[in-house]
């Protein structure tokens, strides 16, 4: 199990490496694993997990 997970932080680092323009957006984003807000970016993300990136909210 642990072999097939990656800390959220690492996944996001890979993402910004690939898409540098995401960096400022990710800096002000919230993150969710399978619909639950992540308190800690050390949280493990598995292959079947969904990691959602929420840029700043704009409702209303």
């Amino acid at each position, binding site marked *: 199990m642990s072999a097939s997970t990656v800390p959220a932080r690492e996944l996001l680092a890979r993402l910004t490496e690939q898409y540098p323009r995401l960096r400022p957006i990710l800096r002000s984003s919230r993150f969710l694993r399978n619909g639950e807000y992540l308190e800690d970016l050390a949280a493990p993300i598995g292959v079947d997990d969904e990691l*959602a990136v929420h840029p700043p909210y704009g409702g209303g």
Partner: protein
Amino acid sequence: MGIRLSRAPISLAAAERSLAGRRAGGVAYFAGTVRPDRHRGGRVVALDYEVDPGPARRRLEAIAGRARRRFGAYDVLLWHRIGRVRVGEVAVIVAAACAHRAEAFAATRFLIDELKATVPIWKEERRASAAGSAARPPSARRRGTPVK
């Protein structure tokens, strides 16, 4: 308690019917509408709202619960439009039924401020430009991951 994420129009009249305010001495409603703002890219004709529905519902319910406890609200209501909302239409309604007006006003203010800051809803402006108001609706409806 009314939580609603609606693709159909919402109205204050419907909100009034839905709110259980029988015991209340003060009921306050707030409606947010789409403004006809002007920007360099042209006049805004509509806003396209997108939501991450699961987390949004849970956050709306949490806000409602906090408003009930903090202001002793008998009932509260949080409704938000999703999808295309044209200028002049109501995009959001919040309301609180409390014992007195002071709590009702404060609770309503709390509801809209918390909604704007903590609920995963996003908007994109649609403008009247060279393409006219034939601007396309949001292309893909992805489940749960509104990453752009």
